C-alpha cells in the first residue's frame, strides 16, 4: 500500500474520536500534503473497505473519519460487550429531536413544543453529553440556551447537522 495512505489508515485506527481532515493536514504539515490528496486516499480506503465487506468499515461521521463495525454484526458484537447503556426513553428522544432541529433553543420553547415539562429528559441528555448548555439568550430572565454536541453526531452516525432530514421531509412522513 502507498505509504501515505497507510499512515492515514493507521492514524484513523489509532484515534479515539473521528479523525478530521484538518488534523491529518496538521500531522502531515512537514510533507506538505494537500487536502485533495488526503480526500483521494480517504475515498479509496472507504471503497476498499466497502468492497471487502469485512467486520468493520470506514465511515465519515461528526466531521471526521472513523472505523466502525458493520451494523449487520451488531448482535454478535453485543455478545462480546455485555450489558450496554440503556436506550433513550421516548421523552428523551423527542426532547433531543426538538433541540437538534430548533437549536440554539431555550427550555421553555422545548416545553411548548412537547406540551409537557422536559426537566428530566433534558437532564438525561446533558448527562449523556448529547446536549450541552451553549450560553444565555439576551432576553429578560436570560434563559439558558441548549444545543447538540459532537457526540450527538457520533452517536447517530451523522456527518454534520445538515445530514438530518429537513422538517419538510419529515412532514411528508406524516401524510
Amino acid at each position, binding site marked *: 500500500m502507498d505509504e501515505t495512505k497507510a499512515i492515514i489508515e493507521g492514524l484513523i485506527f489509532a484515534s479515539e474520536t473521528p479523525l478530521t481532515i484538518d488534523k491529518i493536514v496538521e500531522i502531515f504539515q512537514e510533507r506538505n500534503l494537500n487536502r485533495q490528496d488526503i480526500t483521494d486516499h480517504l475515498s479509496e480506503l472507504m471503497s476498499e473497505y466497502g468492497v471487502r465487506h469485512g467486520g468493520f468499515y470506514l465511515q465519515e461521521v461528526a466531521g471526521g473519519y472513523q472505523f466502525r463495525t458493520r451494523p449487520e454484526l*451488531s448482535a454478535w458484537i453485543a455478545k462480546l460487550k455485555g450489558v450496554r447503556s440503556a436506550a433513550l426513553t421516548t421523552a428523551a*428522544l423527542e426532547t433531543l429531536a426538538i433541540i437538534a432541529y430548533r437549536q440554539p433553543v431555550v427550555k421553555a420553547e422545548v416545553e411548548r413544543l412537547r406540551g409537557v415539562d422536559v426537566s428530566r429528559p433534558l437532564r438525561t441528555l446533558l448527562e449523556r453529553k448529547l446536549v450541552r448548555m451553549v450560553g444565555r439568550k439576551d432576553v429578560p430572565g436570560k434563559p439558558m440556551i441548549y444545543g447538540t454536541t459532537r457526540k450527538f453526531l457520533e452517536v447517530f452516525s451523522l456527518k454534520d447537522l445538515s445530514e438530518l432530514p429537513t422538517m419538510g421531509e419529515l412532514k411528508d*412522513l406524516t401524510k
Partner: protein
Amino acid sequence: ELDIYNIPIALITKQYLEYIDILKTLNLDLAGEYLVLAATLVHIKSKLLLPETTEEGEEEGDPRQELVQQLLEYQEFKNASQSLQAREVLERDVFVRGYAPVEAPPPGDDDNQAWQEIGLFELVDAFRKILGNLGQPELMEIDLDRTSLADRINEIMDQLRERQSLTFTELLNGKLSRRLIIYTFMALLELVKQRMIRICQTGPFGVIRLFLAVAEEEGHG
C-alpha cells in the same frame, strides 16, 4: 389515535382524564406531565360550550385551531425522533474500536480538549454535589447577580494591579449604564468587605480613590 384535524374534544378529554387516573395510581410524577395538555383540552371544551361573546368584536375562531397547530408541530418532532432512532446508533448498531481504559492523565501538555469535553453542565453539577454534601442550603444561592458580580470584581482587580490606584469615575470608564454602575458599586462593597481593596477620600465631597489592600511588591514571596 385520532385525526388531528378534527378532534372530538369530549372524547379526548375523557380519555386523558382516565389516563391520568391510571397514571396517578402508578406514578404521580408522570401524571403531572399530562396535566397541562388535559387542562388545555378542558379549557377548549369550556370555550366551545359557552355562548360566543362578540362584544369585543374579535373573531376568536375555533379554539381547537391552536391545539391542532401544536399537535401538528409535535407530530413533526415525533417523526424527527423516529428518524433519529432509525439511524445507525453507536453502541446499538455499530461499535468503534475497543480501547483500553484511559490510564493516568497525561502529564502537562495542552489538554484544552479534555476541558471542552467537560462542559458547563459538569461544572455546575460538580459544584452542586459539593454543596449538597455540606448540607448548607444557604450556600446554594448562586444566582445571576453573584456571577455578574464576580466578572466586575475580576475586572476591577485587573485594572488596579495595572494602575495602582483608580477613582470611581475612572472605573466606570465613561460607560454609564445603570446596570454597570450598580454592579460596580456592589463589587466595591464586596472587595472592601473581603479586605482586598482600600478606599480613600481626600475630604468631604473629595475624589474617591481605590487602592489594592496588599500592594503587589509585598505580595510576592
